[in-house]
């Protein structure tokens, strides 16, 4: 029954020299789940990904994949996982089929077994007519597909993907995610994906938000959005600082000032919007009301914008 937990990470820490990349991360991923690690670049997701992929030595804490310890049973872990790298791990001087053949051999597949697996994956990923092309001649989207095919040859129970949508156009991104959901449905593969894209994060069953090496939130995307509050008001003002103070005095709110704008989270946003506009008509240049997004979740948990590391 321990098979139900595919990934278990506890108190994982990692430092590069003086810089602490992970500051005690802990979470579990159930078998068959699509789990996303969302965070801005430099948040620690790639370090976590590399630790799980057995590429980095574990310094402190533990990580197990289907009960196998990443630090002490790396060979068994490598057999369980398929890894899709951000920069495809393909040999551009070889054809698509040759790349897949070498990969099969590395995983102990040869002869007829390898052949049928390769042709099955070429088929499923729509690569059949490019099978004899040199990888260097393929577009970024096709390369990514070959990379995914490569990582699935040995039918991994857990698929790790590092920023799979990087460099893909929206169509290719959509296809990739369709394929990943089908893979989970048909084969029960557990999928762990790192991303800095909100829309990609939205497709995951559950999400962990990483910021400065810490897991600041974890849950289903809807759950996380609800935790922020019902509504999200964003106000643009020529003097956001004084407006924020006035709002605090007048409405007993806790506005956050982020750059040139002010954010307020809470319920009954439409009434609040009316009251604020009525009270300070001249100090507001724009005001908008929206349901919270994952970006709002990030801001509310970290006090930072997603894209800039600018403090509030």
């Amino acid at each position, binding site marked *: 029954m321990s098979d139900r937990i595919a990934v278990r990470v506890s108190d994982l820490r990692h430092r590069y020299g003086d810089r602490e990349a992970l500051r005690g991360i802990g979470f579990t991923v159930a*078998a*068959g789940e699509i789990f996303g690690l969302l965070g801005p670049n430099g948040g620690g997701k790639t370090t976590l990904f590399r630790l799980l992929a057995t590429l980095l030595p574990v310094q402190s804490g533990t990580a197990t994949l289907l009960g196998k310890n990443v630090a002490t049973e*790396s*060979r068994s872990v490598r057999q369980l996982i398929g890894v899709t790298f951000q920069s*495809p791990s393909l040999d551009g001087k070889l054809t698509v089929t040759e790349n897949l053949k070498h990969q099969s051999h*590395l995983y102990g597949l040869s002869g007829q*077994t390898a052949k049928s697996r390769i042709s099955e994956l070429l088929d499923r990923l729509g690569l059949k007519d490019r099978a004899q092309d040199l990888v260097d001649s393929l577009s970024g989207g096709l390369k990514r597909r070959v990379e995914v095919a490569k990582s699935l040859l040995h039918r991994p129970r857990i698929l790790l993907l590092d920023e799979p949508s990087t460099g893909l156009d929206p169509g290719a991104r959509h296809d990739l995610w369709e394929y990943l959901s089908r893979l989970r449905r048909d084969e029960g593969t557990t999928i762990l994906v790192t991303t800095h894209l909100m829309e990609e994060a939205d497709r995951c069953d559950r999400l962990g938000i990483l910021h400065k090496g810490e897991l600041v939130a974890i849950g289903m995307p809807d759950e996380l959005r609800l935790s922020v509050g019902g509504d999200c008001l964003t106000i643009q003002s020529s003097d956001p600082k004084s407006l924020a103070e006035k709002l605090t005095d007048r409405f007993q709110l806790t506005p956050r000032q982020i750059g040139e704008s002010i954010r307020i989270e809470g319920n009954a946003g439409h009434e609040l919007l009316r009251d604020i506009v009525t009270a300070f008509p001249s100090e507001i240049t724009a005001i908008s009301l929206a349901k919270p997004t994952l970006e709002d979740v990030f801001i509310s948990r970290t006090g930072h914008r997603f894209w800039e590391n600018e403090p509030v």
Partner: protein
Amino acid sequence: MSKAIAISESINDSNGDVAHAQPSIGLAVYTLALRELVRFFRQRTRIIGALGQPFIFWILFGAGLQGSFRGPAGISYQEYFFPGVAVMIVMFTAIFSTISIIEDRREGFLQGVLVAPVSRLAIVLGKVFGGTILAVMQAVLFLAIGPLLAVVGLSPPISTGLTWFNFPIVLAYLALVAFALTSLGYLIAWPMDSTHGFHAIMSVFLMPMWLLSGSFFPAPESGWLSWVIRLNPLTYGTAGLRRLVTPNIDAVAGLPTFPVCLAVTVASAVIYISIAIWLTGRQTAHNAR
């Protein structure tokens, strides 16, 4: 609950023949070595460079130095230089096939190999065997074709000791030297991030190592140079080959004996490959890049 059960069932279902395949070290070494060969033959310019350069060196240096050279037992410079060029081919091939480690790392191919469930030994042996095969192929081609150049007047006639009888021994010995030099290239290239660094090492370490191995000129009787040559492990690689392909016994009389050459070359190969295996097995942040 029903969803969770369905998932665990499908996991069991997918445990087919594929999931039970065991990674094998032999298959991994074979496939990684094969990749080296395929890549080599796909790059025409690399083939031309690899084959053209040694012939040009041999013909030009031979023509230029033939008047002034005083070789052991009066052999011509071409004849003296002949095994030295074969060692040069082996060295250059070793350099070019191991420099690709740095490219593999930069282009991302290497990380795909590192996350595969293959022993780190297989990663080293795949690369080194691939380089060794390429080096031996070219060196043998040179040893076979070189003497024929006299026919078209590009070199004076040289007597070669390479015969059908000792061909397997020469082949095996070349393979040993190539294995040692490719392992040496591997351990230099593995920790590097850029090919520039490797080129620097090549100019200040690998090229002098070849120049001072008795390949290019014979060791003087005494002085610092004789000591440098005596301490250079490649000296014994070259001397061993020279003993195998030089029919004039007087011309090789001053060299270390063949058993000594063999012992030193085997020992250096063991040391280089051990360091290469140790470096590759370490889990470091460098490996993850």
